[in-house]
């Protein structure tokens, strides 16, 4: 995920800004977590792809 895209992303639930935590990678974020500044919902970035599915639509991921 391009770090610059953070400006246009928002929480799918309440549309508030997201903050990037635990980022690995600079301009290209390889992994990390996008956290809603309002509701605190957390969205993982895995292998460069942000998973912004609302929690009720996420597949169970094997441990």
């Amino acid at each position, binding site marked *: 995920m391009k770090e610059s895209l953070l400006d246009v*992303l928002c*929480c*799918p639930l309440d*549309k508030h800004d997201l903050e990037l935590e635990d980022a690995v990678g600079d301009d290209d974020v390889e992994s990390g977590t996008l956290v809603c500044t309002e509701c605190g919902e957390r969205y993982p970035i895995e292998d460069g*792809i*942000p998973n*912004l599915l609302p929690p009720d*639509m996420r597949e169970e991921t094997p441990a």
Partner: protein
Amino acid sequence: MGILENKARARFFYKYLSRVYDRVNPFIWNEEMRTEALDLLDFDDEPRVLDVGCGTGFGTEGLLEHVDRVVALDQSPHQLQQAYGKFGKRGPVDFHLGDAERLPFASNTFDIVWSSGSIEYWPQPVRTLREIRRVLVPGGQVLVVGPNYPDHTITQKLADAIMLFYDEADADRMFTKAGFEDVEHVLMGPSYDPEVAITTVGRAPE
């Protein structure tokens, strides 16, 4: 409500269908139809483009003939896997896992929102179209390709049972209700079934 309008079922369905999707898909939605649809859009001044429900990336591929980068979203990791194979995860497409009905993008972000072969799985099409209008800049263009409602009764029964199909009047109602202006429709299809798909374009109000 059709079987695939339930999102969980759609995800399950695509988990298996994604393996053959690009082989099945050209029967109803081919490159000529894609070109005809792309011609309805204005690509001047390097527009920022979003592909909603990009799936395996067939529409995305067409968009990339007109712009250098595309932002793409799909709910199915299995469909996206096919798209990664075509464009890579770090290529010209910014991929996102997400829900069309609850877009993870800020308001007034995109100049063009494209969606082909996705609307038939939206449980609440008007609500999703409103989401698309929200992320479009004022005057921005939307283009949606979906299945045209079939003429024959038997096919209609099948259509009603499986997914959302709609005709021009339905599309007019949905897009107007979602707040779009200058709404127009073009019926498209291969020569043996020239009206199998309906493409609708509209603009977000200025």
